[in-house]
Structures are given as C-alpha cells and as structure tokens.
C-alpha cells in the first residue's frame, strides 16, 4: 500500500538523519531515488534547489513534495507525519536521558562516530549530483562531446564564490541560474 510505503520511507529517513540539514540528503537520495525510484536524481536535485529557496527543513519539504507527486494530498500528509514521528520519539527519549544523567555524553559519543560517516555520505550524494549534471545518467566519460563543459564551469565558479565569500546559498542558486541562462543565450 502506497501510503504505508511513503510513511515508512520517510520515517526511516528521519530516524537516521543525524546532524540536521544536509545529513538528510544522502538518505533521501538512497531511499526515495535509488530504492523506490519515486523521483529521478534530477527531480531530487531540483527539490534541493526549491528547498534552498523556500523556508522549512529539507526533509519536510521532500516529504511533502514526494508524497504529493506519488499519492496526492493524503500522500503528502502521511509522508510528513512519517518524517516528524522519529523527532517526537527521540526528543522525548533524549530529554529523559538528559534528566536522568544530567548530560548526553553517550549520545554525543555516538554522534562523534557518525559525523565522519555523514560527511562521506554527503560527499557521495554530492558527487552523484555533479556527475549527473555534467555527464547525464550514463556516468563519467572522458569523451568531451558527452561532457557538459559549461555545467562544470558554473559548478567551479559557484564553489569558488562559496568558499571565498560564504554567501547565503540562495545567492549561489540565483547566480547559477542566471549564468546558465546567459550561457544558453550567447554560447
């Protein structure tokens, strides 16, 4: 049953999202794009763009978007509930641990082990997106005619600006869109 599947998928995604924000991206990609194939990697990348430009956590945004695409308003509602439930369970559990022990050192120890893994996972999701953008779904080739050079140039330009000036990502998104339109017009 599709509603149950949506609920369970987003429940698992949020259950394993440690560290907020970008940590959800590899999980959403794995469960929604690879495992269930509910949306394509290109759609998911657009979804990240939309999330950067609108308020709200990326997981809630994804749950609403995917739920709506797959099963309409009810799908969006069950996905969002699935996405919020792990938070409710864990927050009360951790509050209890905190009250009982006065600190969260065990949990923070576990988080210490998770942080490098989360970085590796975000890198994996990011590289998949970059490869798709520059080479399409076929993956990396050394054939220049299959390579979108401009996509790579925009990528490096954005990365340079991001590293150098640390702007709000919303400006990077706007800039990359404008560059793409200019390239399309004149190149």
């Amino acid at each position, binding site marked *: 049953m599709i509603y149950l599947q949506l609920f369970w998928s987003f429940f698992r995604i949020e259950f*394993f999202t440690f560290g907020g924000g*970008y940590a959800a991206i590899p999980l959403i990609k794995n469960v929604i794009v690879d495992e269930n194939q509910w949306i394509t990697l290109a759609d998911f990348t657009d979804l990240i763009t939309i999330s950067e430009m609108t308020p709200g956590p990326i997981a809630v945004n994804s749950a609403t978007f995917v739920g709506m695409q797959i099963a309409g308003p009810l799908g969006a509602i069950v996905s969002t509930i699935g996405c919020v439930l792990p938070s409710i369970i864990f927050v009360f559990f*951790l509050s209890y641990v905190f009250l009982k022990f006065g600190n969260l050192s065990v949990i923070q120890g576990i988080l210490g082990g998770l942080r490098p893994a989360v970085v590796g996972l975000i890198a994996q999701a990011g590289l998949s997106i970059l490869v798709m953008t520059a080479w399409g779904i076929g993956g990396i080739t050394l054939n220049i005619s299959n390579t979108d050079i401009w996509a790579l140039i925009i990528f490096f330009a954005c990365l340079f600006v991001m590293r150098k000036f640390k702007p709000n990502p919303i400006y990077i*998104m706007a800039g990359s869109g404008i560059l793409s339109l200019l390239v399309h017009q004149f190149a």
Partner: protein
Amino acid sequence: MKRDKKLYWKLFTSTFYISAFTFGGGFVIVPLMKKKFVGDLKWIEEEEMLNLTAIAQSSPGAIAVNASILLGYRVAGFLGSLCCIFGTILPPFLILSVVSTFYSAFRDNSTIQVLLKGFQSGVAAVIADVVIQMGGDIFKSKSIMSILILAFSFIATYFLNIHVIYVLLASAIIGALTFFYNNKCNIDDRESEAHT
C-alpha cells in the same frame, strides 16, 4: 502559565511565523526561536534554552522540528508540543504542496529547463562546499579512525552501492564502542592516579 486556548494559539502563531520567514535550516532557525521564546516572550530561561538546543541537535530529524517539540512541551505540555510542530511544518507543507502541483508543468518549459540545469550546478557546488567545510574539520582533528570512517562510508555507498542506513548503523556502533573504550581508559587513568 495558564494553559488556555490563547496560549496554544500563541505557540502556534509564534512557530508558524518563525518557520515561514526563515531560510536556511536548523542552525538559523534555533537562534530565532531563542530570541522569541527567551527574549520576547520570556517563557524559557537562557540556560534551559541551551540544554534544549543540545537535545535538539543530538536527536535525529530536522533540528527546527526537534527544537519546536521541546519548546512547546516546556511551555504547555504535549498539546503545546503539537501546536509548535504544526506551526513549524505547516509553512513548508503548504508551499511545497503548491510547488509540487505545478512542478511537472514548469519543468517541461524550455526556459525553466535551462534555469534548472544551472541550479543543478549550483546545488552540487553548495554540497561540495559543505563537504569541504565538514571534511576539513575531520582531517584537522587528525583522528585516523574518523578519516577511515569518512573514506569507507564514501566508498561503500558510491562504489559498492551499500545502503546508507547500514553505513550509519555501523558508524554508530563504532562511535559507541570508541566512546566506552575512551571512557574506560579515563576511569582507569583516574584510578591509577588515585593510587599513586
């Protein structure tokens, strides 16, 4: 504080307003919640807010949602929690419902396609920046274990297609074992110091 309709409504509208006008995720929204609940409304003490933030950041899930659950509960119990959750998720829920409805029609427009193609490069760059930032901190810590976990999680998921959840479970277990091992060493050290 009297737990009446007015209080619940205030919790809902406060979190709704913060959520609707905050761009940029949990690390941006929590300071705004603090300003509202600690500074303006004076419902929560500064020190308690620090503890709530620590719990919200240690718990899985979106940090903004976690923080709103804790704030609502602290002010008005479980019903207060529910009001804050609704306030926090309703703005993105409404916006994304609309976006999702029109996405397919938009996506097939040729100008929008060029725009979206550019955004994809931008998203890749923003994620690369996050990875460089977070990865840099890991490498600076010079912990061989952390660097190995980073490398393995990347290789396991990118090249071997292992499910992200298994990688996270394995790293959580390694994290817990390392924590207990270090803690045991610390206790042993303290005990041997006490003996000398």
